[in-house]
């Protein structure tokens, strides 16, 4: 009896105290675009972009934000001729989400032809070699032989002018095109003092985004680095083997043993092919992109994986017009909804009291425990997972309140049956709990099953709903087991169990 009392007090303390502590810390559930507003961004594609291409881009954006933004529900729609209107709820890392949505995500694996230490391209640093290198760009783009030999033969053409696509100040390629014969991109090379900045001269892409079947972020425990595991298509696997085999023929420490992994013109990694790779190259169709050990690297690995998984956007978008937007539901609607919700809850409370008397009080306290736990969970998930509560999520909660009330009704009805069958109140509440809990578990399992599947399979607003329904149902089971059972057990042992109009026995008769 004492143990149950302590247990009960502990449950109340955890539920109510926990919520109070969270509110005190300013950790509250974040509201979604429809309830609180957020940021609106216009992404503009080049004029004359086909509508089908835009539609394709929007689908990719929707999938990406799913991976990066957790359950923050954005609103993405084609607007006008060549723009996409993205509305994000007030999420913590807006910039990050926008990057994930808008980045083109063009991935290419390119052989490193040469490396120039420092921040300037080879065309700037030495005038003599600039002719040599510049010559490469004047050779026809169709030329597929990209060995160093081509570079020297092309040097015959004497042009001192820089190719059009190279910044004269830095000697770096301005707009990267993976199909271009050569590009000068900032990256790093491995030297005796570790990774040092260098400009990499890279050949045309031998492996591109479409050769990637899947990209999964992960942690490599052997060197404590965040990585992306790339699963290549069978065609991609062959290309990758061929590419690594060619690099493996170069001597150890040569930049040409490196492979540049380029994303939207930026070298995100340039690993050297390991010493033990033989003439067949790296087979098996798996490639690894290593980021680093820092928290920012973890984020970068996750975001980049999301961008790579669904392929590149078919066109490059430019971001313009970042604006703050208000909730789509006016504040009047929201207030009306809240008032109506309170009235509804008050009616439920009256119903429970009238029908179950003292047990109804237990049910009402139990529903506040349920509510406190649910709000706390949402608040924590908002903080940790970027969850936002939309109207759809609130719908899930309202239904969950109904289901929570039902758990009490199923239990109380069972108690009444047991008492009418001749049990005394004390044994009736225990026996009834066994049966009622079995029913609650079966029925709740259906809800959880549904919520889980919707969560796994759906996208967008449906996902937010599934999460709130699933969580609420789970909490319902926990509350039934930890609070309701103890509270009713104790109530049955007070005078209110057997005697008086409010008692459990009188309720049953």
């Amino acid at each position: 009896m004492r143990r149950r009392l302590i247990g009960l007090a502990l449950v109340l303390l955890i539920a109510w105290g926990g919520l109070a502590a969270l509110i005190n810390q300013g950790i509250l559930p974040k509201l979604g675009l429809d309830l609180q507003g957020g940021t609106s961004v216009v992404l503009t594609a080049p004029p004359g972009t086909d509508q089908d291409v835009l539609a394709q881009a929007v689908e990719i954006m929707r999938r990406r934000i799913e991976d990066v933004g957790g359950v923050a529900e954005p609103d993405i729609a084609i607007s006008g001729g060549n723009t996409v209107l993205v509305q994000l709820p007030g999420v913590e890392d807006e910039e990050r989400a926008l990057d994930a949505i808008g980045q083109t995500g063009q991935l290419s694996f390119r052989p490193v032809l040469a490396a120039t230490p420092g921040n300037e391209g080879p065309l700037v640093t030495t005038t003599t070699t600039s002719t040599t290198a510049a010559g490469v760009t004047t050779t026809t783009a169709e030329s597929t032989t990209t060995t160093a030999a081509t570079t020297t033969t092309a040097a015959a053409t004497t042009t001192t002018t820089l190719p059009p696509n190279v910044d004269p100040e830095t000697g770096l390629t301005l707009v990267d095109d993976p199909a271009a014969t050569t590009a000068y991109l900032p990256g790093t090379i491995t030297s005796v003092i570790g990774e040092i900045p260098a400009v990499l001269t890279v050949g045309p892409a031998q492996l591109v985004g479409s050769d990637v079947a899947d990209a999964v972020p992960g942690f490599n425990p052997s060197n404590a680095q965040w990585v992306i595991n790339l699963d290549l298509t069978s065609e991609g696997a062959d290309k990758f083997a061929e590419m690594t085999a060619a690099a493996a023929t170069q001597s150890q420490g040569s930049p040409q043993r490196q492979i540049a992994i380029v994303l939207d013109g930026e070298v995100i990694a340039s690993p050297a092919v390991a010493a033990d790779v033989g003439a067949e190259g790296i087979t098996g169709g798996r490639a690894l992109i290593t980021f680093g050990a820092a928290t920012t690297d973890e984020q970068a690995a996750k975001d980049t994986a999301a961008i790579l998984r669904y392929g590149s956007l078919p066109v490059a978008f430019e971001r313009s017009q970042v604006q703050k937007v208000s909730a789509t539901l006016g504040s009047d609607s929201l207030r009306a909804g809240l008032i109506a919700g309170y009235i509804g809850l008050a009616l439920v409370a009256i119903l429970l009291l009238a029908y179950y008397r003292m047990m109804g009080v237990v049910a009402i306290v139990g529903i506040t425990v349920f509510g406190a736990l649910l709000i706390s969970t949402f608040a924590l998930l908002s903080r940790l997972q970027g969850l936002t509560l939309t109207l759809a999520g609130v719908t899930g909660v309202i239904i969950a309140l109904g289901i929570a009330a039902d758990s009490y009704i199923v239990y109380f009805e069972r108690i009444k049956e047991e008492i009418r069958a001749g049990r005394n109140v004390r044994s009736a509440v225990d026996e009834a709990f066994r049966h009622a809990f079995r029913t609650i578990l079966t029925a709740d399992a259906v809800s959880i099953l549904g919520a889980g599947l919707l969560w796994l399979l759906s996208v967008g607003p449906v996902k937010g709903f599934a999460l709130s329904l699933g969580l609420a149902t789970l909490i319902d089971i926990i509350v039934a087991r930890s609070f309701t059972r103890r509270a009713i057990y104790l109530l049955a042992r007070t005078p209110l169990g057997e005697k008086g109009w409010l008692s459990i026995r009188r309720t049953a008769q």
Partner: protein
Amino acid sequence: MSFLKRLSRGETNFDFVGRWRLWFQISAILILISLGFVGFRGLNLGIEFRGGTTINSPNATGATIEQLRLLTDEAGVQGAVIQLVNDGQAVRVQTPALDPEVERELIDDVAAATGSDRGEISIDSIGPSFGALILRQSLVALVVFLVAVALFMSWRLEWKMAGSGLAALVHDLIITVGVYSITWFEVTPATVIALLTILGYSLYDTVVVFDKVSELADEAGPKEDYGDIVNRAMNLVLGRSLNTSLSSLLPVGSILFVGSLVFGASSLRDFALALFVGLAASTYSSIFVAAPLLAAWKKGDPRVGSRRPKVRTGRTSGTLAPSRPRPAPRPPKGRR
């Protein structure tokens, strides 16, 4: 004894199963009406599904969402999404595709309300934001969900219960969608969510009822008719079913009636209606569709109750058939 008293004691004596013809006829008519409306009239899909027009205007006068909502309502534009941009410096109104005339009128109204020039207002088309992808994924999720639930119920209860439960579910969904077609309320993403909610609730309700049926069937003697068992279970859980439905319908009904009719929050109406109708249909169908269907389906089966060994010990009131003479209750031990 008053009806309420009997209801509260699980001692009502309705013949749910015997009148199955009547229930099925009612349901069949409702389903036919629903299908007819959806088939011929279709649904009023919101801009989230169909796209429409977006009107961007500066807002020199500081018009509020409520004021603009009045304008769109007066113009007869349903389901407009109205937002303030940059703390009210500008407004964005998204509407479904409009007649050129209505659109011109609305733009003039917006211009007047916000104190802007006609030329300062930009008008663009806007595509669906609840796109084909989301819809497709949700449908896939739905199918997988139904299969999984059928398997779960077959394992936990029995497969004919799974079948009857799913039939009741489809019944609820069709009727809810039908009500949308009849009332011509707008279908928004929130409505779709509400439909999914009904899915979960309908099954939940049916499972509670069937759990009782299977408990009674386990305890029943080998001679008892399955229809009688179902009837007994239904009468026992009737009080619970009505209470539960009330406690779910009260908050939703309050949002629907108090929120949208009294306070005029029309955007809440669309989804509250789906929930309300769906919840009501779920309660009806678990009693009047799922249970009679199960009884009819199992009629030809060999004795059901004897198939499973009786594992339950201890007395449960399940053996007390309200419709038959009650055995004398044990003297209560707790009372002194």
